[in-house]
């Protein structure tokens, strides 16, 4: 028994041979220090959660949240937004034919026109979005299917893209630039907006395509290989993504600066959406003068070059016109949420007050003043 439990090691270094340490032990007392930390007496705040103590917090939260919510709600309501679905899923839709006949392989472009009416004028800058529904841009394999180095202009990555891009990595032996499924599925509808005058003339509304992407994306994250001088040379030896009609350096025939990987539409598309129903900024309609609204009320026509098939996966395409406030686009949810939570807090506060008055009287020992 004596032997069974002998343990030399854990005895504060009392080794079976080192008992002479005990000599030092006599001098040095083992008495612990009397410090607040070691004696666990640090000064502390000890809140006790009872109806009485919590009560103010609920009221305060309620009182703060409700006004904020109202403010948000009002702000959101002031934002003007117009949305039009041009998918052409139904037979009466103007784009029905395009939608029905179109596939990724077809070479001929299909055009359709969607008329609409703005009841209210849009005052400040108007943001034009295209929206897709049921499009799972957040699919795990889809999200991964890109090569950021290639997009950043890395030459080696350009010629041999990352494996993540499979199966959109190479096309008949030549590397695809830009590779990957995201790039391959680039949204390629072209939208044009016409305002119909009172006298019936179609005025094309100028759509600005600069500044729709994040500044950092455009200038840091996305770069063309070998500088921006001659994109055709730079992209030599690569092939276009399977679904594309034009190679990447011919994305924007109008603005040569907007070609290659730094094409803003491309950049916007490459920023994969979080949710299956999403919108992406397409163009900006800038306010011309302070006197006239950016988009006056009236009749408009949306001209669509219908290239992008979504019906196969039950998708929807929309065009959205929206003004913007400090808190972004139109979204009454947050305001409602604030009001709801604030009200609940207030309500619970009242409940607590009742509880406090009914039950807490015996329990107010904590409140007894010194």
């Amino acid at each position, binding site marked *: 028994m004596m032997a069974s439990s002998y*343990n030399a090691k854990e005895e504060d270094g009392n080794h079976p041979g080192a008992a002479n340490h005990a000599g030092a032990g006599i001098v040095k007392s083992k008495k612990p220090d009397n410090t607040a930390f070691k004696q666990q007496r640090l000064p*502390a705040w000890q809140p006790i959660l009872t*109806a009485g103590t*919590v009560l103010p917090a609920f009221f305060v939260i309620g009182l703060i949240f409700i006004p904020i919510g109202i403010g948000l709600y009002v702000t959101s309501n002031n934002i003007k937004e117009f949305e039009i679905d041009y998918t052409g899923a139904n037979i009466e839709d103007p784009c029905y034919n395009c939608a029905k006949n179109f596939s990724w392989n077809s070479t001929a472009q299909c055009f359709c026109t969607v008329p609409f009416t703005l009841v209210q004028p849009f005052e400040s800058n108007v943001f034009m979005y295209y929206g897709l529904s049921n499009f*799972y841009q957040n699919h*795990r*394999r889809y999200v991964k299917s890109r090569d950021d180095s290639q997009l950043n202009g890395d030459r080696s990555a350009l010629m041999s893209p990352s494996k993540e891009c499979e199966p959109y990595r190479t096309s008949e032996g030549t590397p695809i630039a830009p590779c990957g499924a995201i790039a*391959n599925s680039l949204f390629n509808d072209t939208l044009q907006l016409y305002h119909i005058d009172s006298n019936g003339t179609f005025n094309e509304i100028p759509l600005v395509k600069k500044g729709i992407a994040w500044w950092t994306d455009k200038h840091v994250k996305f770069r063309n290989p070998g500088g921006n001088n001659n994109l055709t040379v730079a992209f030599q030896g690569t092939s276009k993504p399977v679904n594309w009609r034009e190679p990447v350096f011919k994305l924007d025939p109008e603005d040569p600066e907007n070609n290659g990987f730094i094409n803003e539409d491309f950049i916007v598309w490459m920023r994969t959406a979080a949710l299956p129903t999403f919108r992406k900024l397409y163009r900006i309609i800038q306010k011309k003068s302070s006197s006239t609204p950016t988009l006056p009320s009236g009749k408009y026509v949306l001209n669509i070059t219908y290239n992008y098939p979504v019906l196969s996966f039950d998708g929807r395409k929309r065009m959205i016109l929206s003004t913007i406030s400090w808190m972004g686009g139109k979204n009454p949810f947050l305001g409602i949420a604030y009001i709801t939570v604030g009200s609940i807090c207030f309500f619970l506060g009242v409940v607590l007050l009742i509880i406090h008055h009914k039950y807490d009287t015996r329990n107010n020992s904590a409140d007894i003043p010194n």
Partner: protein
Amino acid sequence: MARDSEEDPKAAKRQRKRKQKENKTRTVHANILYDHAKGEENPNRHYANNKIKTTKYTVLSFLPKNLFEQFHRFANVYFVFIALLNFVPVVNAFQPELALAPVVFILSVTAIKDLWEDYRRHRSDNEINHMDCLVYCRVERRYVEKFWKEVRVGDFIRLRCNEILPADVLLLSSSDPDRLCHIETATLDGETNLKQRQVVRSFLDLDCDFDPLKYNGIIECEKPNNDLNRFRGYIVHRSGRRDALYKENLLLRGCTIRNTEDAVGIIIYAGHETKAMLNNNGPRYKRSKLERQMNVDVFWCVIILLVMCLFTAVGHGLWMFQYGDKRPVFDVLSPEGTDLSPVMSAIYLFLTMIIVFQVLIPISLFVSIEIVKICQVFFIHQDLDLYDEETDSNLQCRALNITEDLGQMQYIFSDKTGTLTENKMVFRRCTVAGVEYSHDANAKRLAMYQEMDSEEEECPSRGGTLPRRDSVGSHQSAKVVLRSQSTKSHRRTGSRAEAKRASILSKHTAFSSPMEKDITPDPQLLDKVNECGSQMDFMRFHSQPMSQLPSDLADVLDFFVALTICNTVVVSSPNQPRQKQQLLQPGHQPLLHPRLLSVLSSPSAESTLTKLDEEQNLQQAFSPVPPQYDGRPLSAAEGELRYEAESPDEAALVYAARAYKCSLVRMRFELKSPVKTIEDFIKRFTPSRLTSGSNSSSSSSLVTNRSFTRGCSSVLSSPSAESTLTKLDEEQNLQQAFSPVPPQYDGRPLSAVEGELRYEAESPDEAALVYAARAYKCSLVGRLPDQVTVELPHLGKLSFELLHTLGFDSTRKRMSVVVRHPLTDQITVYTKGADSAIMELIRPPDTGNSKGKRHKKILSRTQHFLNLYAADGLRTLCIAKKVLSKEQYACWLQRHLEAETAIQGREELLFESALRLETNLQLLGATGIEDRLQDGVPETIASLRQAGLQIWVLTGDKQETAVNIAYACKLLDPEEEILTLNADSQEACAVLLEESLHYIQAKFLCSSSEHTTTKSYHSNVSPFGIYTPPPPPSSCPPAPPAVHQLGLVIDGRTLAYALDRSLEDKFLAVAQSCRSVLCCRSTPLQKSMVVKLVRNKLKVMTLAIGDGANDVSMIQVADVGVGISGQEGMQAVMASDFALPRFRYLQKLLLVHGHWCYSRLANMILYFFYKNAMFVALIFWYQFYCGFSGSSMIDQWYLIFFNLMFSAFPQLITGTLDKDVSAETLQQLPQLYTNGQNSEEYKPYMFWMNMIDAFYQSLVCFFIPYFAYADSDVDLFTWGTPITSLALFTILVHLGIETKTWTRMNWLCISFSVSLFFTVALCYNAYCPTCFSPSNPYWSMQRLLQDPLFYLLCVITPAAALLPRYFYRACQGTLFPSPVQVGRQLDKLPAETRRNILSLSGVKMGLPLGPKPHFLSLGKTSFKGCNKKQQQQQQQRRGLQTDSDKELPSADKDTLPYTKDAAPPASKDCLDQTLDASSWITSTPLLSPSDGVQFPPDGDSFCVKYSRGSEDRLKSDQSS
């Protein structure tokens, strides 16, 4: 020739090798026989050297070995599996390298911890390896200093006093005259007493220094093993002689040489093969209850994980399926370009989801728990309140991972002696020959100590405490000062405690506080002793035979002689710490003195010398030992003799000694008795027989046996004892005539001599008895293995030749010594032992003659007094003696020697031999020793009991003693009834238990109505104070059948029956309904069986606390074992999980630290589960919006480091520092402990509640951002980052709600966490635009911080998520406040108010067991008014309480079958009515008719005693 010699060693080597393999022995040759200690030829080279390496790893082996060990943990394997899964392209979810991070992190944290520990071990190894020792060097022909690690098996090593043994050494030589070497084994077993080791027999008679060069033996011994108490082997000399080796010859590594100037030995085992190292097993690993519970929930987490993965996988399959053949653009083909079927991708996805959801199984939980526990242990270590100043020891946590179990204890099993009591044995009173000596003065003195102690505790004055000892009335102060001067480390300015500590540490004598040492003698007895001494003196002077001494006086003398010599006490002197009394010292000198004189007093010195000569011849004829081996260095003898040489006669002796080179030891043997009896021969051949211990291994060589048998016949033919006696008388006569010694000794101030003597005993009882005898001037002055020297009043020093010592063992419960009485020359056996053991062995008095009558009277009176002592709570010991005739002795001796020399079953044979000897004893008397309660024991027990802990005391003491100690420490209450179970047989026990159960049920039924009335009564009366709630809700797990005011006392024998499988359930049922249980006379095994039974059957948490070796098994069995690092060695401590200096510290350890540790850890674990579930659920919800594709909006970095870094620290701080209730309140309101007992902080449903809450919170955290960003142009990670931040905020605020104590650390840590997250996020998002594929969160955080929406989300989401919990906590705090919360509210009150309330509630709450304070109700008035009101109410309540006191018994009378007033017959009637009890159940109001013992002290308490005695007892009961 050359070839031969070349081959020979090889062959020999092979042979040896084979031999080594075949034989289970080790052969050790001396290294010096071989040229190179490490050479090829050295036969010892295969043995381990003395370099120790306790490290686990080397630089190279660290990584593989450590990893291998870590992968023994299942969790680690799991996480590695997941990390590796990530490398499979089809299923991978994260960047594979990144996914390794958590596993690598966890593994490396553990590895670093291991590395650090190993490094510390390495350093301490190094230190030890480089210690110095003296090893004989062949080349230099002297001992040279070497490092320990260079020592090898077969080396000769020289050991000096106070040196530590570097290896296991066979003792070959010692400077001690008796060839002894004293060692202290404190580092091995913690026992502070000295142990004697003896030189190997063949070297015993060496008269000069041991010369290694002459050594030529070969040692054969056992293979290394870890049995500290066994060593067998033999040494073969060149002459072919074999000598056996025993454990008495072996000095173990780690022990310290004491009292021996110089010793030489040969190393047998070295390094890791030493017994000490083989005994070195690692720390204990226990799994706490909380952890077990946690593991269940981890298992549940796994289930949840699998369900979630399965759900997602099915969802993904369906999602794929709905598209059919039309593959949408976003559904990317597999890398190979092949189309995946929905089923296959579902299967792949299942694996992916396991990776994504891996966080649900908290990888860092295990590491965090370990860290928190280490911190908790640190804080427990640092607690000032658990530090004992007297012994300079604080609590030791030996098991690091069960701190939280301390907060969940339900049963405490305590040892009594040394645990509840101080184990400071104080002699209180004694009875000799039937006469009681009450020692009133002694009692007063003890009372004074007690007062003094309490005084000093109240006003601890520094400095002036030592002189105060004067008031004791003895010469104490002088002694204390003397001692303090002799000890270096003592600081005189120190406090009393410090002084005491210093003295304890420096003295190493454990059992000798002044309280124990200074016994005030009873004047009556002192007179008798003096009278006896003077008569003896007179008789000796007149050469009357000693047998004429009046028998009562003879008994007195024998009594004290027995007290003095019947023990194993070692005498030492404080002036030379730990040095045994050397012969040179005056204390020892007379040992020889009278003998020398007696020799010289023979007619002529010449004749003596011739006689001596003859004897030597004779001796040589019998002994093969060459004479030159005899004895000790001549110079020493010379010195000593010179000291003596005052008379010319002595010069002759010096001459004689010189001439014959004869040792004094030897002379002692030779001159002792003129008759050459067989003993002398035997002694010469079997010296080891003289060493202590009945089970000590002893000589067994055939030579001895033969010589014995030869001798035995010569005994019978030897001159009769009569002649011996007369001869002796003659001598003494002469001695008287020549020697003026006795008066001289008398005249010497007794104290001066005694004060210098110090007794070292193995048990405190022995020391107490020796000190007691010293008070009567019968003092032990020296003990040698073969001789005990005693100083008696008027008679001077007498040497008793010690023939045998039959050591104490717990089965016999007694010890005996066999001595030759120097005065009568009779062989006398003195036995000392437990009264039950001795009383059975007393020779039945022969009633015929007057002597017999006297004996009978003594017997009965002693029994009477014994009962009285026991009733006083004293430990009783009986002293008896027996005179053996030579023939009897010779016969016994023969068989005893056979037993000693037996190879097989020696222990049993020795035991039987002892039994044979200890019969037909003659009772001398009995002693009562008080074992004082430790400070604060009653209070601690009371508060532990209030805390709802059931306390059982398991003791080996006799029933009466135990019961009385139990009363003293408030374990039993005089108010409560006591069930005493004593049964003689299994059946009787069964019936007893049955009846007790019935009785309890009947009582319970009767009292239940009364119970409820009292309850309502309680709540009505006190509008002010803490209410006793309605009976505790069914939550307390196996609602024990309401515990009554009942105490159960059961004795060992009955316990043995009750622990039988068939009865254990009944026994438990009875025990459970009793408030306290006392098991007396229980063996260590029974103790552990009881603990095991309770633990396994009742499924409760058990704590065993004890201090001695007999508690070890109990300590090991219990869930938590606590050892008292007291005086009975360290065995209990070694076996324990926690070691306390004192019992009373248990209160704080359990009530405060246990509570804290439990609640902290429980909360942390729950929080951990919540946190992980909440975080993972976020991703789960997202699956509904990403086609169940396993995508995650939370960046992989955040996902992986969230648990490890961002949210890790606050919970650690809270888990370490959070205090729900302050230490003061926890101690003042022990009821709060039930919180942990019922596992109220962590119940199974709480896990699910937390899970539900986690899912709710994650829903909020997911859907608020979801709706806020619905149909917007937000991208995946710009949306995911706010969610991560929100989750972090929510989790931290959640922790904030659960945190009870906010210190600076909490604030710091939370802000650190938040800032860490944002810093990391900002850096990470700015670092590289293209790395970190697939997520590319470049600049998202930066943009988010510019977005007001982000801030708006940050405000509302945590608020919405935590609203329910916050509201629930608030409502709970008001509507159903837990007791803990009441405690916290009390904390908030100013100290004085709190004290008032607690003192009030203490009155109230102390009454029923484990009430929960439900409402702390105070009047609404301000507290100043309250104080008065309070007092009034208190008075009022007191009044009421006394009323209730009056009322309650009357209620009892109506309902209870037994009442204190009712006469036994009445109660019997009642019992018959109610229970149909059989007649042998007797209800006795605690008066056992046979001996008239009364207990409990106040006889008016009611008590039921069941006893199933033998049949005659039964009859007598019926007849009476």
